[in-house]
């Protein structure tokens, strides 16, 4: 039961697609330097991934692996069109800034490969719950990255000037994105190991008290 729950809800902390799986990291590194970009990417990623995986789940499972992968990618590329048209209404400035990373979200490995390796092995309801938590996991990382990088690179939050004494301009550059994400991955792993240590300790204490 516990592992089943972990499988469903793990996308946020235990098995985060960015910090643990290192999937979809290019947009986080390059475009995750402001909150506005982060919000535009969150909208696009969430909409494209959810719809594409949902539609792809109706693709016959008997097809050869290669054919299925191509069909998933094509479905995702088709879903991208209405999502982008809607984004032009809501985030016109960010679309320009995000540039080529917007279409790249549509061919992310969560849609193309994880669908086959993970999601389609689950029941439909479980798949949807797990998918939503994976998306929330990406959204949380993107939001945190956008917030912190904007704060320390530009001294603003959502384009509003904030009183920050130390500005690190390099955080807005790609190399800043690499280093920031690397440090975030390290901190995430550290927290995860602390939690799993606590869990083990609790379990061993419980088993001792059971005896």
């Amino acid at each position: 039961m516990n592992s089943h729950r972990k499988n469903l809800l793990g996308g946020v902390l235990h098995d985060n697609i960015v910090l643990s799986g290192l999937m979809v990291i290019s947009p986080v590194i390059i475009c995750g330097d402001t909150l506005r970009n982060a919000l535009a990417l969150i909208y696009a990623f969430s909409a494209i991934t959810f719809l594409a995986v949902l539609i792809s789940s109706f693709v016959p499972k008997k097809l050869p692996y290669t054919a299925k992968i191509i069909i998933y990618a094509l479905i995702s590329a088709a879903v991208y069109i209405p999502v982008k048209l809607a984004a032009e209404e809501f985030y016109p400035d960010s679309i320009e800034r995000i540039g080529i990373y917007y279409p790249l979200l549509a061919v992310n490995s969560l849609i193309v490969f994880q669908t086959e390796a993970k999601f389609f092995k689950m029941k439909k309801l479980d798949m949807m719950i797990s998918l939503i938590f994976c998306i929330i996991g990406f959204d949380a990382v993107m939001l945190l990255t956008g917030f912190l990088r904007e704060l320390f690179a530009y001294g603003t939050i959502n384009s509003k000037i904030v009183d920050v004494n130390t500005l690190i301009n390099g955080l807005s550059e790609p190399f800043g994105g690499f280093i920031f994400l690397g440090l975030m991955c390290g901190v995430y792993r550290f927290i995860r190991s602390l939690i799993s240590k606590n869990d083990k300790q609790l379990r061993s204490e419980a088993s001792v008290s059971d005896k």
Partner: protein
Amino acid sequence: MFLINDLITLLAANLILSQALGTSTIFIAAGSRKNLVGTACVITLFTTIGSAAAYCIDAALPSALSDLRLLFYTLIIGILYVLLLTAVYFAGRSYFEDFRKYIHVSAFNCAVMGTLFTINKRAAMDSSLFELGEYVSAGFEAGIGFIIAALILTAAYRKLNSSKVPSAFRGFPAMLVYLGIISMAVYSLK
């Protein structure tokens, strides 16, 4: 001197170090020499042939339908994916077993798709680059850039995965920080 200039240009235009395209794939490639050679060869094939096909699409696609570009690019990569798998299958069973995984990993990733979109963007900004030769050479350069970045990562792969690195930072986090430092050096070349 020309060689050094070319190397500096290749590094400065490197899609991984300057645009973070294909970072996850490079971590797979840097794991062993066999993976590095296999993945780099297949990615270079995809970017080079894909760029030629992308030129045809860009030339034929009216600007009013530019939102369909991703769909067509996906289609050509899909066709290339099948063709490569078929070619390797007929080349021999052992080749197929060896190269199949590299083709699967390389087909739909940011390194390949990002290269096609980057070339298209450059050509849209500078019309002199809108030529088949320019597209193909840019695609090939992107593949070479991937190899260079993978070699740089391979050089430090063992140390970044060694027990001397704190366990929380061992592996991917250390490699990301390392790539960041290399990217910073490349940034200064621009």
